[in-house]
């Protein structure tokens, strides 16, 4: 097993020891469950139940709207209480289905498990969409779309992203320890879709135990391989990971499929396995609850739609009043405006911090020390990009490759002047991206006229 990496990157304090040994506990919700209709990238799902309907756990309550969309399933049995706008962790109010839990947990399955589905490519992809599976690493891109590239024959790598390079998060690590056979099983299903592909489990070298387990487990599988990468943030970022495994580099205008690869997160593979082999839709996920002010940091299997407040109670609450709540890791995650929000398919961690962190301190002027340049994995000049962003200089921003930013946050982390480089660059990117979208729409309108 060799160890490869990329240029730049950082080694932040990883905090994984807090929750790394915490066996995955099942969480039982007591209050209402809220299912936002937009937990994924793409069109929002459309409700197929009405207020007052009784639903079962695993029942489809909203269906996909078009190809780039997935259905939503109830995670408990109970009555549909309302279909209304609710707060989500990102701070936006999203149309959601609210289900009152009747604590009976009556289940229904997606379909009876049927090994013959494995013979049909279309059937596997249909089941994956029907099960509501999206990328569970955080992006939430519908998995069946990823699995339907234009030229399936050109895919020669399926990469299982087992890097988990974000500090504090250990949910993938626990999954690899507790159910490696499901990860391998998920990979096996994906390999059925792509005849020329090789399945690679990409693990960071701080999780050598998992790498060893996966390697042993797949010893007899000629098409599977375990790949150990250097432990470095952001090793798990899609572009860095593809580069580490295949030596192919993709830019912001390309998809992994353009480099002949498909990257899926470890837990997504488990969801694929459970959907195809056990007929289970995606109704729960593993979440790391951690941070320095949580009583019992650990890993929890949480029904989707459960409230973050309940999740915090399950983890023993916070003895000290925390000053920050984060959804996701400290690098890519976001601070939550309120924790009275539901857990979604993309919530990988819930972190509570007591310590005042760097972002709360006043920034100093940039003296161009170049630390940000040396850590940027995308080979950009964050200090200059942030300056252009502050001035709103769009042309300069684009000329200096601002759109290539993957928003990993290494620059903000390393900045000795505590400047919010990533945040500034990311805001500018969002503005430019929405401008581009608008431009495209306007162009289309012009054509139809």
């Amino acid at each position: 097993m060799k160890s490869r990496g990329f240029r730049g990157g950082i080694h932040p304090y990883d905090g994984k020891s807090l929750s790394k040994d915490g066996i995955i506990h099942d969480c039982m919700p007591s209050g209402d469950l809220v299912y936002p209709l937009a937990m994924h990238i793409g069109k929002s799902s459309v409700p197929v139940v009405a207020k007052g309907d009784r639903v079962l756990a695993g029942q489809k309550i909203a269906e996909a709207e078009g190809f780039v969309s997935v259905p939503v399933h109830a995670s408990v049995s109970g009555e549909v209480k309302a279909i209304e706008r609710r707060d989500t962790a990102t701070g936006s109010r999203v149309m959601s289905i609210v289900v009152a839990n009747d604590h009976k947990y009556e289940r229904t399955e997606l379909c009876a498990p049927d090994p013959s589905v494995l013979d049909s490519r279309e059937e596997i992809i249909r089941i994956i969409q029907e099960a509501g599976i999206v990328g569970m690493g955080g992006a939430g891109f519908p998995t069946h779309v990823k699995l339907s590239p234009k030229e399936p024959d050109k895919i020669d790598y399926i990469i299982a992203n087992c890097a988990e390079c974000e500090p504090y998060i250990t949910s993938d690590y626990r999954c690899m320890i507790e159910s490696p056979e499901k990860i391998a099983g998920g990979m096996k299903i994906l390999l059925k879709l792509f005849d020329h592909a090789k399945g690679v489990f990409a693990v960071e070298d701080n999780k050598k135990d998992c790498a060893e387990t996966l390697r042993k487990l797949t010893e007899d599988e000629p098409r599977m391989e375990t790949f150990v990468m250097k432990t470095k943030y952001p090793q798990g970022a899609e572009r860095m990971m593809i580069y580490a495994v295949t030596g192919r580099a993709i830019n912001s205008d390309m998809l992994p499929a353009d480099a002949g690869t498909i990257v899926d997160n470890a837990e997504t593979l488990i969801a694929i396995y459970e959907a195809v082999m056990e007929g289970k839709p995606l109704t729960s996920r593993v979440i790391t609850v951690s941070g320095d002010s949580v009583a019992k940091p650990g890993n929890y299997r949480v029904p989707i739609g459960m409230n973050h407040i309940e999740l915090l109670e399950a983890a023993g609450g916070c003895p000290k009043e925390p000053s920050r709540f984060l959804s996701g890791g400290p690098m890519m995650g976001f601070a939550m405006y309120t924790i009275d929000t539901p857990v979604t398919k993309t919530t990988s961690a819930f972190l509570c911090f007591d310590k005042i962190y760097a972002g709360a301190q006043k920034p100093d002027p940039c003296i161009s020390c170049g630390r940000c340049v040396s850590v940027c994995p995308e080979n950009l000049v964050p200090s200059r990009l942030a300056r252009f962003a502050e001035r709103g200089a769009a042309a300069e921003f684009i000329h200096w490759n601002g759109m290539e930013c993957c928003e990993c946050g290494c620059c903000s982390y390393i900045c000795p002047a505590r400047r919010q480089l990533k945040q500034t660059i990311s805001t500018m990117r969002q503005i430019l991206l929405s401008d581009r979208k608008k431009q495209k729409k306007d162009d289309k309108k012009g054509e139809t006229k």
Partner: protein
Amino acid sequence: MAEVLIALMPAAVFGVVHFGRNALVLVLSVTAACMATEYLYQYFRHRPVTIRDNSAAVTGLLLALNLSPNVPWWMGVLGGVFAILVVKQLFGGIGQNIMNPALGGRCFLLISFAGTMTNFSYDGMSGATPLALIKNGQIAQTNLMDMMTGRIAGTIGETSVIALLAGAVFLLVLGVIDFKIPVMYLLTFVLFLGLFSGHGFDWYYIASELCGGGLMLGAWFMATDYTTSPITPNGQLIYGAILGILTGLFRIFGSSAEGVSYAIIFSNLLVPLIERATIPKAFGRGGERAWAK
């Protein structure tokens, strides 16, 4: 910035011991003047006072080390006020200045008080610097050993190559400065000398040029100033090369024996252009194989 102050200490202490009382007076008064100017400017303009970041102290110390030991204290103070007030604060303070404040101050004094600034006599000796001797064709009178230890005429801080290199190694080990600019600077300078000086690659001549004058102080401590050097890796190489060429040009063909100060402030002004021409290629657009730091 405290690291830079520490790194300059060997050179400063040597300068004071070597040149005597006035050197100490200059080091203290110029450093104090720079800090006071920064404090007063920010106080009266109701800006956050930033003298605690030590950057004004670094400017003051560097300026003092760039002065002849014969400069009266008030002249040094005037240079310090100019460096902080005009070169640094009027351009927006730390991170915004377009040229190195210490060198801006030095060049201001060089133009205003050329006689005093270039009078390097000490201990009753004529005070011809090794560079001046070389310029006059008296290279035989230079002593390379004395240039290494610093027992020669020159500005307070530039004479001892050993003391300066000790500080430079300290900064390199701590990662405060990068080797790209200084190494490229020195290599290009040597190449330029070999091609155009008329002495060819005569090792004694080249070694004397490297150890004489302000080259070591400039290359390791002033060309590496973050704010006034390019932030792009390739830009730093080009910047270093331009510095080497300009220094060679000024020293060989210029009227003065020295050229480091002018080479650096001139190159400072080219930094925005150099950066624009050396925007790194992004990952996935040819930049993925860029060297690792």
